[in-house]
């Protein structure tokens, strides 16, 4: 799960990013509205955290521009402005959720997970695919009812496939969603991660679709 964090306060952005990474999220940080808008336009994110009071371009303008360009990316507004009128304006600009500073980082994580889950069409937190189950609210994977231990990259790949179970996920999409902007893909290539995942949850659970990407499936391959 990859998060675009648009926040101009560097210490806060760094702390949020650290907390999110600790929960296996991939996080890209943009320090102003212009960068944020550009990154949201050009890269694939599962969710964006957007401050309203941003240098260069205000958050609400960024959000409107994304929505006008047809970008459906779920957006959580994270702002110090806590009036209801500002909330209404934020949602009218196209926000999906709203959190006011100061906040509990656990609350932010919970809301981001819920946003991503709902944006991928899952009404309930528990997603099951064959023997693998995923609690989208806590971010815990289970295999046959037992907790599954995963590295951050493995978690990201499996979460991405799980949220889109039974659907082919393009290689490019997967790569983008798994790696943070500045981390190279060479050391831990996608193939290696998928191979490690297959060892943990079963060979047939992840199907390779040639020339396109991967699919998490409950169907047993013939």
């Amino acid at each position, binding site marked *: 799960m990859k998060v675009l964090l648009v926040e101009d*306060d560097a210490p806060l952005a760094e702390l949020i990013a650290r907390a999110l990474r600790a929960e296996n999220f991939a996080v890209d940080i943009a320090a102003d509205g212009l960068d944020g808008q550009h990154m949201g336009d050009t890269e694939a994110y599962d969710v964006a955290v957007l401050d309203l009071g941003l240098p260069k371009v205000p958050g609400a303008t960024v959000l409107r521009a994304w929505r006008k360009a047809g970008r459906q990316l779920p957006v959580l507004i994270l702002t110090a402005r806590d009036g*209801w009128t500002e*909330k209404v304006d934020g949602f009218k600009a196209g926000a999906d959720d709203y959190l006011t500073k*100061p*906040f509990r980082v656990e609350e932010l994580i919970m809301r981001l997970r819920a946003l991503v889950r709902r944006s991928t069409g899952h009404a309930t937190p528990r997603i099951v695919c064959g023997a693998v189950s995923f609690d989208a609210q806590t971010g815990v994977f289970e295999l046959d009812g037992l907790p599954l231990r995963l590295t951050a990259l493995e978690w990201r790949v499996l979460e991405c496939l799980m949220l889109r179970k039974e659907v082919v996920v393009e290689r490019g999409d997967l790569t983008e969603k798994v790696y943070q902007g500045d981390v190279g893909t060479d050391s831990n290539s996608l193939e290696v991660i998928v191979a490690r995942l297959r060892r943990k949850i079963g060979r047939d659970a992840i199907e390779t679709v040639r020339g396109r990407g991967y699919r998490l499936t409950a169907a047993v391959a013939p």
Partner: protein
Amino acid sequence: MKADASLGRRLLLGASVFIVVALVVATIVIGFVLHRFVQGQIDQRLDTQVAFLASTVKVAPAGEIALDGSADGPPFDRPGRGWYWQVSGPRNMLRSRALGDDVPDVSGLPLPPPPPPPPHRTAPPPRPADGPGPGGQALHYRILRLAIDGMPVEIVVTAPRAAVLGPLREAMTTLGLSLLVLGAALLLAILLQVRLGLRPLDRLRGAIAEVRAGRRATVPDEQPAEVRPLVSELNELLKQNAANLERARAHVANLAHGLKTPLATLGVALSAGGRDGYRYSAKLADLVDLMERRIRHHLGRARAAALAGPTRAQTPLAPAIADLGAVLGKVHAGRGIAFEADIPAGLAVACEPQDFDEIAGNLLDNAFKWSATAVTARAVAEARWVLLQIEDDEPGLSPEQVAHLLKPGQRLDETAPGFGFGLSITRELVDLYGGSLDFASAAGGGLRVSLRLPKAGVEPTP
């Protein structure tokens, strides 16, 4: 006069002084003119008698003078009235019958020296004099000294001073009364004029009172030319005041929001520390919470404090509730709570939109938090109020608990965690608008909040 005394009194006093002085001067001048006129009439009559006497006096060769006929025609025929005549020759003296034996002491009077006769005139005019006559009666004299056949003759004709003063007094009495009436009429007119003239000030006062009551933003510009500069200055002042207020609010908001980001940083840092096993982090996190509450509370107060009395603002209810419902639907998206609003179209409350959002937003948010499946909002119009009822369907807090939490003076720190502490601000805002907030159990077992706010378009009761 004190500088701050009534304007009307100043104008009235000024005008009165002027009118009295003008009338007194007019009385004096008219009196003088009248006196001269009456005097002239009398003099003319006396001079006719003088001329008559001069033409009828005959001088005998021995120096004796005699009248050729009678000169005692009226009014010289009645004795003791002051109408007398007397002709003195070098030898004898003729006098009117009315004089009897009393001879006016003509030679004793301070007679002015005869003016040099103009060369083309045959006879100089008789000279006037005033003095007491027989019996101390005040007399007016006309004296002519002339020579008849070479003999010096002095003709004296008198009239009573009363003949001059009587008509004068009569005329002056009438005149004085007329002038008094005129003066009174003028004063009345001025009183009326001052009243009418100062009426725009009364209207202005009314307009300013309306501004103060919040029914108007500015004082209307249609004012008399003299007041217009004052009004435009006043309006500028109002505008500046509003701008200052707005700036002060913005400063408070900026301060609050400026504090929140470092506070958020602190909160997140503490939470990260908590994971690393820092044992005081929970306590510190509570402090961060408390600081946030304080900031939000005072931010709300700063907004609310700016509001004094009724307002001109209107907030249409249905769209505002629909917006808030949509927001809360998204915020609580995961819980599938149905929101149903039954608000008559066109219903509006006399409330700043932001304040209404704050009030209704907090109440609805609370309802969403505690609700299991559904939240409803219903509004009805009453005579002066709009009643908005918000219900949830899950017994969270009992109405008594809520009422306790919302008691005025309740300390913020004691507000139950999880319970929207925005409600204390809500209570303050509702109070500021003169509305009411009541809590009861809903039919479904949840909480029913009844909010009354002034209806828009209704004149607020003073």
